C-alpha cells in the first residue's frame, strides 16, 4: 500500500482547517451585518416621526388647556403666590415647578403625556419687556434641564388684559396693571410679566413647551 499518496492523512486536517476558517470568516461577516446602523433614525428620541408626534401632542396639551372652562391656560400662568413670589405650589422662581407637577389639567396632561412616557419637558413664558424695543424675556414655569439636541417645542399665545387678576388662593382683587416687576421693593405685589402695552392689553405671553 505504499502506492497511496502520502498526503491522504493530511487532507482531513486541511478539511477541518478550512471548516474552522470558514466559520471564523462567516461569523465575522454576520457580526458586521448585524452591527450596521441601517438608518439614521434608529435612536428613538431622534426619529423625525416621533419628534413630530411629540410636537403635535405638546400643541394638543396647550390647546386643550386653553379650552378648559374652569381653569384655562391664562389662569395657569396667573396662578401666582404673592408671598413666595412664584407660581402656587412651585419650588422656587429659578426652576418654577421643577420636578413637581404643574397645577390642574395642564399638569395632568403634561404628566400623563410626557413624564409617564419617559419624556422630559420644560415650560416657559415668553413675554414682551416693558420697553418693547428690548424684545422678549422669558420666565420658567417648569425647568427640568437643558433640552437635548432632538428637542421639539410647541407654543400657544395668551393675551393678558389690564383688568385681569391673579388667581392664586390668597389673591386679592387687584388688577394686573397694579403689580410691578420689581421683586425686592416690597411695595405692591410682584408679577414678572410687565405691562408692556398702553391700553387695555397688558401683555402677550407665549407659553412654550419644550419636550425631549
Amino acid at each position, binding site marked *: 500500500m505504499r502506492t497511496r499518496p502520502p498526503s491522504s492523512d493530511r487532507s482531513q486536517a486541511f478539511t477541518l482547517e478550512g471548516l474552522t476558517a*470558514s466559520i471564523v470568516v462567516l461569523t465575522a461577516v454576520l457580526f458586521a451585518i448585524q452591527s450596521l446602523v441601517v438608518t439614521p433614525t434608529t435612536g428613538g428620541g431622534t426619529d423625525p416621526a416621533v419628534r413630530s408626534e411629540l410636537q403635535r401632542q405638546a400643541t*394638543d*396639551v396647550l390647546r386643550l388647556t386653553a*379650552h378648559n372652562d374652569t381653569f384655562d391656560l391664562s389662569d395657569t400662568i396667573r396662578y401666582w403666590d404673592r408671598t413666595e413670589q412664584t407660581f402656587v405650589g412651585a419650588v422656587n422662581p429659578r426652576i418654577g415647578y421643577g420636578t413637581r407637577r404643574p397645577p390642574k389639567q395642564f399638569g*395632568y*396632561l403634561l404628566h400623563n403625556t410626557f413624564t409617564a412616557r419617559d419624556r422630559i419637558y420644560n415650560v416657559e413664558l415668553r413675554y414682551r419687556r416693558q420697553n418693547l424695543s428690548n424684545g422678549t424675556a422669558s420666565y420658567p414655569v417648569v425647568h427640568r434641564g437643558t433640552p437635548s439636541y432632538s428637542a421639539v417645542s410647541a407654543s400657544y399665545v395668551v393675551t393678558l388684559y389690564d383688568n385681569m387678576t391673579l388667581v392664586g388662593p390668597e389673591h386679592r382683587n387687584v388688577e394686573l396693571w397694579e403689580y410691578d416687576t420689581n421683586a425686592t421693593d416690597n411695595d405692591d405685589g410682584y408679577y414678572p410679566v410687565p405691562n408692556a402695552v398702553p391700553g387695555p392689553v397688558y401683555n402677550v405671553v407665549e407659553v412654550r413647551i419644550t419636550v425631549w
Partner: protein
Amino acid sequence: MFLLVTAFVLGLFPNLLAPFTTSVSADEAAQADRVARRMIANLSMPYEKGVLNATRFRTVLGMNLPSLRDRYGLPSSTTLNVTARRIDTPAIVSDHGDRLATVAAYENQTAASEIRLITLHNGTCSEGCRLVVRTW
C-alpha cells in the same frame, strides 16, 4: 462541505433566517396622522379645536370599515382602528354606554399609530383623553 459549513454557521444565528418582520411603512404612518388630523379638524366644536362633538364622534366611530375607508380616503388594503382611551391607563372610554372604539379590533398587528389628545364637549374626558388611531 462548504454547504455544510454554511448551514452550520447559519444555524448558529437562527434569527438571520427568520422571516423579516414587516415594519411600519411611511405610508401607514402618514395615513394614521392624516386620519387623526382630519377627525380633530372635522369633529371639533366651533372655535374649540380638540374639543370634539361627542354625538358626531360616536357616529363616526360607529361606521363600518368600508365607510371609514371611504371617509378618510384610505386604500381598501388598509385597516383602521380608532379608539378614545383614558390618558392615565389604556382603558377605552365609554360615552352614553357606547365604547368609543371602531369595529375593527386591533390585535397586536404591526401598525402605525398616532396619538392625539382630545376632550368631548359633553364632559366625558373632561381632563383629556387620548385619541389613538392605528392603521395597518
